[in-house]
């Protein structure tokens, strides 16, 4: 018996995008426009943005809640695709806007996640006497202490990779407010790290990103 290829019944959407949207790489807006008539086209938006959205949310919430929120982001996106403003070629800020709304509703879990990261320090000291983990925990503690609005803007800018203009689009705030929140958040982060005894850039307690 010939075994059929194991494929999701909707995975053909990627192929059909190429057929239906000839003439160069379609923008997200093109794909979303096409998906209004044929929902399977939206798979290309998923393929383009899922990893980035998931990564952002998993960093903030851990893998369990983060993946749940990432999946919900795309479920809400496809259900509301008809309301997408097609004048924006890149759907990234729109998707992160949905993700940010979901994230705000789960603010408590974000704090729990960051605190858990901090608490892990206790169990990690014995196996990491070099102290590289100390710096990581300092950052976790500092993020917990940040004002939630400053934290959101800062993380969208630094982790989401969005310029100020796109952070404004994600959050629906005036760009001046975004600039102010990021600036104040950055200053507060420095104060918190200094008060924890971790001097940014000094590296005496281990370089961030390395494992001892």
């Amino acid at each position, binding site marked *: 018996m010939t075994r059929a290829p194991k494929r999701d019944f909707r995975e053909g959407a990627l192929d059909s995008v190429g057929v239906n949207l000839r003439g160069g790489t379609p923008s997200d807006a093109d794909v979303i426009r096409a998906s209004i008539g044929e929902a399977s086209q939206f798979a290309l938006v998923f393929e383009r943005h899922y990893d980035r959205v998931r990564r952002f949310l998993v960093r903030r919430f851990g893998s369990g809640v983060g993946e749940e929120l990432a999946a919900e982001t795309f479920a809400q996106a496809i259900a509301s695709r008809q309301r997408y403003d097609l004048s924006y070629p890149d759907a990234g800020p729109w998707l992160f806007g949905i993700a940010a709304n979901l994230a705000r509703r789960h603010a408590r*879990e974000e704090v729990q996640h960051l605190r858990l990261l901090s608490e892990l320090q206790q169990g990690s000291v014995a196996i990491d006497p070099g102290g590289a983990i100390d710096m990581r925990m300092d950052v976790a503690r500092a993020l917990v202490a940040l004002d939630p609005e400053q934290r959101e803007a800062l993380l969208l800018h630094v982790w989401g990779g969005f310029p100020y203009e796109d952070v404004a689009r994600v959050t629906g705030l005036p760009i001046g407010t975004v600039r102010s929140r990021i600036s104040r958040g950055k200053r507060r982060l420095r104060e918190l790290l200094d008060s924890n005894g971790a001097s940014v850039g000094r590296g005496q307690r281990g370089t961030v990103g390395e494992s001892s």
Partner: protein
Amino acid sequence: VSDEFDLLKRWGEGLDVTPSTQSRREARQRMFDALDGELPSNGPGASRLKRNRHRRRIRKITLLAAIVGLSLTTAVVGAQLDLYQTTKGETGEQLRTNLGLSPTPLVDGEPPQSLFDTCQAPGQAIVEVPSGGAVCVGRGADLRGQFEAWDLSHRLRGDVPTEAEREAKWLQLRGAELEYQGDHEGAMRLYSRAADLLTGVVEPQGQVPRDGSTTSGE
């Protein structure tokens, strides 16, 4: 790049965990599930959708339980192992090996992502235990593995369980199994003894899995 931005960026990169193909596939399927009116109402696709909806319901229960602070065994240890991986560069499986624990059974060739992933075989079910938390019970359910996962999650947090706590947890897992089998009285007996252990009314008798064998003593 400013120092603070660079620090935050690099710290965030240290938290990244590679997504499993399964979670990605489920997210993609869930996205299409959101289009109720545009989905097939019968056939293989519909069957898969029903199954995925069921999985999501269980996931939501798991998530809800986590939010209200219950100690869902596998979900908790999964999160802990992910965190450990990011801070030490060692996988959960390597950690389990180093600690002399049995390997986690794979699901579709990948590590399980949730309690539901490990509890899908016919004749298995997820049962809550009185102390809060849930356990996979039924035919072929790995009670010992779940016990080890719970134990490991606490050790990773630096909260090493006492012998009384370990024995109480083991009795609770076995109680849940008995309850699933319909032996309510037997389950209550084990739950009661677990409560007595936790309150110090009785002393532990060493009735926990050790060295590849399971001591029941009941």
